[in-house]
């Protein structure tokens, strides 16, 4: 089959840099492929994707060639490139340019001079296919992140492209919304035979759709082939192991012999049932000694908040924070988690109720006094940056809290692996690095309570582990953490207690293992895989394989 896109010995070096970001990449993409490009942060995934469409190419020096249907992509005219190669960015907010959904769908068609009748036909077709009919006249600013990303996809689809390039399209979405988006992407691929090339960190959902896995390591092509073999390769490499989704990782960790690695909970369960493999719980490790409790009280009583445009968001929320605890608040987008955190941080004043820190109402405290005791990290950390270098930002924040910056700043930079970018402007960093700087800013004031809004959003699995371990260390020293998150695995791995936020209300917090064991949907992939045999299992390490009748010996985790 003739290749649709061909990259031959592609090497790319960003302007002003000496080390190439991509080195000698040779890759063929065939019509109908669904390719997932995987790699750690900085491995060159996004750079590779941007080489495939001339308008997206960053400034730098390119060697080698990328062709589309035999023509170098740099030689494609603007209209051919727009029509044949679609692109959907990571942040759903940056693409829309028009006021309403219908105008946004018409935008690329207008750019290419389509007549009104032709536009009507295309828009009707795409809106019907993606179920956007009811949203056509909705202002773009009123759409949720998931709806917005769907509109971005629709706007690209309206031009009937041959290939769609997607750069971590679900990174900013909650798991349910991400799943819905990927289901639609699968429909686009299966029913319209459109070639999909997608970069992604969260592989648990996307790999089941892909027919090829491309693995990049330090800008080089480390693997290109079927998904299952690629996962085996990734699991063998310690730095890439966290990227392997939980279900295939479980089979690899327990050395379960399978011809093709299961990628979903359903196929995993089927394989376990067919092979009649049995598992038992591993005795839990001794509970960790409780962290030294700080002497403070943080309580919320009857907190109700209403936004003028969207109505009630918090309804009579009560919360009594245990000093030294790590509470995870889980809920869908729009359930009120972020609003609650901003109220607890004293940044927003609710219409009713009080939040008190040691009998002081938090939003009435002097800002300086409050930020020495409460720290808050937004889900978009750039909104807390000043536009200085990393070192300058951290030094200024340390001075604000009266902390000695001379030792503390270098220490945090080292611990969070930010030393190499210490002199870079915070707005020029990658999303993962910005999250780490945000965390350092929140912790440098040595607060008693840390409020984190989606701390793992957009992070690759390895950075997520780094963040988790880093926070755990502070928690062991007595830091109280309250975080809002969609990330079940992260919450299950690190939080002490978890609770649901739903319809503006907060449920009673429960111990983490009990919370995830009781849940049916909102739990870890391993719990869903093994709950029939070991209901308390949350991770692969929680179980061991037991001997079959007259058969094999135990295989331990």
């Amino acid at each position, binding site marked *: 089959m003739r290749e649709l896109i061909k990259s031959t010995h592609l090497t790319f070096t960003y302007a002003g840099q000496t080390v190439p970001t991509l080195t000698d990449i040779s890759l063929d993409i065939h019509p109908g492929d669904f390719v997932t490009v995987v790699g750690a942060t900085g491995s060159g995934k996004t750079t590779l994707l941007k080489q495939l*469409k001339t308008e997206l190419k960053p400034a730098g020096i390119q060697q080698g060639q990328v062709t589309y249907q035999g023509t170098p992509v740099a030689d494609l005219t603007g209209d051919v490139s727009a029509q044949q190669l679609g692109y959907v960015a990571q942040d759903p907010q940056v693409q829309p*340019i028009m006021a309403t959904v219908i105008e946004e769908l018409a935008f690329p068609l207008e*750019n*290419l001079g389509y007549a009104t009748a032709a536009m009507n036909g295309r828009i009707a077709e795409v809106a019907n296919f993606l179920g956007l009919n009811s949203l056509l006249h909705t202002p773009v600013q009123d759409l949720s992140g998931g709806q917005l990303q769907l509109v971005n996809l629709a706007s*690209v689809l309206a031009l009937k492209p041959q290939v769609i390039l997607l750069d971590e399209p679900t990174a900013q979405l909650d798991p349910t919304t991400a799943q819905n988006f990927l289901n639609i992407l699968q429909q686009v691929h299966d029913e319209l035979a459109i070639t999909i090339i997608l970069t992604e960190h969260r592989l648990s959902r996307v790999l089941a759709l892909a027919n090829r896995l491309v693995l990049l390591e330090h800008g080089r092509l480390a693997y290109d082939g079927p998904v299952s073999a690629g996962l085996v390769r990734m699991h063998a490499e310690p730095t890439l192991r966290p990227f392997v989704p939980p279900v295939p990782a479980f089979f690899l960790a327990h050395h379960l012999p399978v011809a093709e690695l299961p990628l979903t909970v359903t196929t995993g369960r089927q394989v376990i049932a067919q092979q009649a493999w049995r598992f038992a719980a591993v005795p839990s490790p001794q509970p960790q000694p409780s962290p030294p409790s700080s002497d403070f009280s943080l309580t919320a009583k009857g907190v109700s908040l209403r936004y003028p445009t969207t109505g009630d968001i918090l309804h009579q929320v009560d919360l009594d924070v245990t000093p030294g605890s790590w509470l995870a608040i889980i809920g869908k987008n729009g359930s009120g988690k972020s609003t609650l955190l901003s109220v607890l*941080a004293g940044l*927003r004043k609710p219409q009713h109720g009080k939040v008190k820190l040691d009998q002081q109402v938090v939003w009435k405290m002097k800002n300086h006094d409050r930020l020495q005791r409460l720290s808050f990290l937004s889900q978009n950390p750039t909104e807390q940056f000043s*536009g200085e270098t990393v070192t300058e930002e951290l030094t200024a924040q340390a001075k604000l809290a009266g902390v000695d910056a001379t030792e503390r700043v270098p220490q945090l930079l080292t611990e969070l692996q930010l030393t190499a970018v210490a002199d870079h402007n915070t707005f020029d960093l990658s999303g993962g690095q910005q999250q780490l700087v945000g965390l350092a800013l929140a912790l440098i004031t040595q607060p008693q309570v840390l409020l984190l809004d989606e701390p793992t959003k957009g992070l690759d699995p390895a950075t997520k582990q780094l963040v988790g371990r880093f926070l755990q260390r502070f928690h062991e020293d007595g830091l109280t953490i309250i975080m809002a998150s969609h990330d079940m695995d992260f919450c299950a791995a690190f939080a002490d207690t978890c609770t649901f936020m739903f319809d503006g209300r907060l449920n009673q917090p429960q111990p983490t293992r009990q919370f995830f064991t009781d849940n049916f949907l909102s739990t870890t992939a391993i719990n869903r895989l093994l709950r029939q045999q070991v209901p308390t299992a949350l991770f692969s390490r929680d179980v061991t394989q037991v001997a079959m009748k007259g058969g094999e010996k135990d295989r331990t985790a």
Partner: protein
Amino acid sequence: MRVGIFDELTFFSRLHPLVAAIYFVELFTLLLIFNHLVLTLALFVGLCGLCGWYFDRQKVWRTLKGVGSLMAMIWLFNVILNQTGRPLWIGHLGSLTVRITQTAVLYGVTMALSLGGMILAFVLFNGVITTPKLSYLLFPVVPRLAMLLTISLRMVNLFTQKFRRLVMLQKTRGIVVSEGAWRGRLQKTGQLLRILLIDSVSAAMETAVLMEARGFGAKKRSHYQTFRWQAMDAVFGVVSLLVFAIIVGLRLHGWGWTGDITQFGVLGPGDWWAGLIMIGFINLPLMGEVGYRLCEN
């Protein structure tokens, strides 16, 4: 100032953008060419009624409170600065003699009503001529301006949202615009604007690349046409033009205007008649609504 956007099913929102735009040109002209109290009052009251009919009344009331304070200020300045005409009260402030004159009071009220009416007409304009309609109107004449306008309005919206979030979140960095001395507050507002600018430029660069990736600039742009000319557009356009022509004709005959402000009175000759026609003109959209509903199946 935006109070809302009309319900899609109203006559006024269904009107062809060109006809609606002409009606607003006529309305703004009327607000500018009369200076008699009764006429400006008729226009102001008529516009209050029209806004109350089409928009959420609570929002209109909030707008009126804001407009009212501005109107009161205009009146006050007139009373203080205009010392001509028959004095109603004379006072002394040291060596300074202060007069409150009938002309100043009446002319101040008229000016305030004109300004209030202008703001309400603009609120109404915002509700009827939405961005797509404005872009549709401008596209055949100045396509680049139409596109620029669309992009700017979206960007202004994004900036406003972003600025609100920055005001809240930058408190964690010690930037609080509601605490401390005024000079400090101004400096902190400057810091916030600088951060907003850096953040926005970075996002705008990405948006520009994504526009180009979707073919922007590759060919001459066309425009997605969503508005069709209907019989009701012709009827409304002709009737409003006729009524407007009558009112302008009356004005050319000297009705509703006093050149010498010292002669300014509560009621001029023919004001009642001109006022009645004016109310008729303002209520044309409501008459259209009645007709539109009568034509429902």
